[in-house]
């Protein structure tokens, strides 16, 4: 599909990547601390960005702090490069940093994401930046920051296990399908951001550095390369990921996260890969799903 676009020069009205150097240094210090303590939420002096809180201001600040002129940036939202907010954030960095952008996972040096991890395995020369709305995995069990901070400090995670147990007792399943809590490097319980639990196994021992930015909540955390990331479960109720009864209707993939598209009001629907780059590349490589098969015939 579309390869990397040519890099424009950055808007001279703004500092490279929008933030001033002082702010970038402050964010880099927070990032370094976060890498040093995997899964720990480091408070940082989040700035007001020219996009609203909730639109990825945390991820944007992390990306701005680590971006260099030679980087190639990919931005995805729901796995896709063409969703409106991904388009908007990519445009923001094209304008303020003049960096090259790409839709190809393998060509990108930094990938900023909201709600998905690319299907393709990432390398150790790549950084994955997550946009995080609520960084505190215990927040919905205990709304107070003062409490949850103590719970983390004392490694007191019983409440989370009780919650998961209650799910099983009531529904027969752990009823968390996204933002499924993980334990990082055997210490901190961490929120993987609202990615579907389908993506959790990819976080474990990932070669790429994973950085998480929560702008409104003013927190940064990190999972260094090759770090153990374990999704919480029980021996008799092991962690499992979602499965679909059918392959992607466009590329025939059977091992990807599929989005359901409603095609009419008669119950007609299609299942297609949420990772648009992955799906496009499979189609280009000659893979077909039921829809593309029909068209080809």
């Amino acid at each position: 599909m579309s390869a990397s676009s040519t890099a424009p020069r950055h808007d001279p009205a703004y500092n490279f990547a929008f933030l001033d150097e002082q702010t970038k240094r402050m964010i880099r210090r927070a990032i370094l601390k976060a890498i040093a303590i995997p899964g720990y939420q480091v408070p940082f002096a989040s700035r007001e960005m020219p996009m609203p809180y909730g639109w990825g201001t945390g991820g944007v600040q992390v990306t701005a702090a680590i971006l260099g002129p030679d980087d190639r940036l990919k931005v995805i939202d729901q796995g896709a490069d063409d969703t409106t907010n991904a388009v908007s954030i990519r445009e923001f960095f094209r304008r303020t940093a003049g960096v090259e952008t790409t839709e190809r996972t393998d060509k990108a040096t930094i990938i900023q994401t909201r709600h998905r991890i690319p299907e393709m395995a990432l390398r150790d020369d790549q950084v994955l930046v997550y946009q995080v709305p609520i960084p505190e995995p215990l927040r919905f069990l205990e709304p107070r920051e003062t409490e949850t901070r103590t719970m983390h400090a004392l490694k007191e995670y019983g409440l989370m296990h009780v919650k998961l147990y209650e799910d099983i007792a009531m529904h027969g399943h752990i009823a968390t399908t996204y933002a499924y809590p993980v334990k990082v490097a055997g210490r901190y319980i961490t929120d993987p951001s609202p990615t579907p639990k389908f993506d959790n196994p990819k976080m474990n021992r990932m070669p790429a550095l994973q950085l998480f930015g929560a702008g409104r909540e003013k927190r940064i955390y990190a999972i260094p390369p090759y770090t153990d990331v374990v999704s919480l479960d029980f021996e008799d109720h092991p962690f499992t990921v979602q499965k679909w009864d059918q392959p992607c209707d466009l590329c025939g993939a059977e091992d990807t996260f599929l989005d359901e598209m409603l095609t009419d009001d008669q119950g007609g629907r299609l299942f297609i890969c949420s990772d648009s780059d992955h799906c496009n590349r499979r189609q280009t490589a000659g893979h077909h799903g039921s829809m593309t098969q029909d068209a080809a015939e």
Partner: protein
Amino acid sequence: MYVAVKGGEKAIRNAHRLLAKERRGDPDIAEISVPQIDGQLSLAVDRVMTEGSLYDRSLAALAIKQSRGDLIEAIFLVRAYRTTLPRFGGSEPIETGSMTVRRRISASFKDVPGGQLLGPTFDYTHRLIDFGLAAESECPAAELAPGPAETTVPSIASILGNEGLVETETDHNPSQPPGDVTSDALDFPAGRDLRLQALARGDEGFLLALGYSTQRGYARNHAFAGEIRVGTVTVEMFVEELGFTIAIGEITVTEVQMINQFKGSTTVPPQFTRGYGLSFGHCERKAMSMALVDRALRCRELDEDNVGAPAQDEEFVLSHCDNVQATGFVEHLKLPHYVDFQSELELVRRMRREVTERAGAQEAAE
């Protein structure tokens, strides 16, 4: 054949064009100017400056124009601009006691030294729509009170303070500079400096509702409007290179000192305590609400019963009073969430299937 939803870039561009067109309105009607907004919608400008944390009338007026009168959007524009500005340093604390007052009232005394000065207030207007305003009209000149208007008057709290009836506020310790909510992540429990900063930036509507709740019994604190003053104060700054303090400008502020009952404790005799409110420009409702909430949040410091009311809950109030944060997170629900929704769909379908299967198996067994 299904065609993937593409063209985000083009759609966004066109949406922006449409927005600009809507903002302009009917092109046959003269465009509203920034000085007009500044001069004639001045209270909107005041609110945007206060909650935007930036004293710049024309910039706030421009933000109101750009945001089509959506004040929270205008506040957001000002905040986002503010972060890009270099910081020269901090000013000296403003001296509201030497304010040149335009309005100054106390509800606690019939008369006060310096007098009651109504100034420009809606308070005693009858809320009858003035149809005369529909046509452009000349406005009659107001007859200003002779004498103390536009002068400095002593603050009520300081007068009561002389008798020890009101708690004395401790001066801030210069070796311990106040915190800054705009450059540090807020930590709990927060000091009063950070609390007041967060409240000053806080949403007027949110603080109004919380202040109101204290009056209706959710952490009632028996407030009296000790003094409300609006006027101009000089902003001074110590300049390192000069070695002395110089005046760098004048700003209009609204200051509210609420005086509240306090039964006293084992160490302090019964006396009145204070809740404090301050805003840029003339934001009286905001400053009063802020003072009520400030006082409610002092419950722990004053060793009062924490009845668990929302206005007493520091984390609850300070985490939710910022309207730029609140509007962002509420409105972000407009962004696509279909991946998460898909995950939930899958789970609900599976659980429904299991319930049906169980019911079927039970029926077969019977």
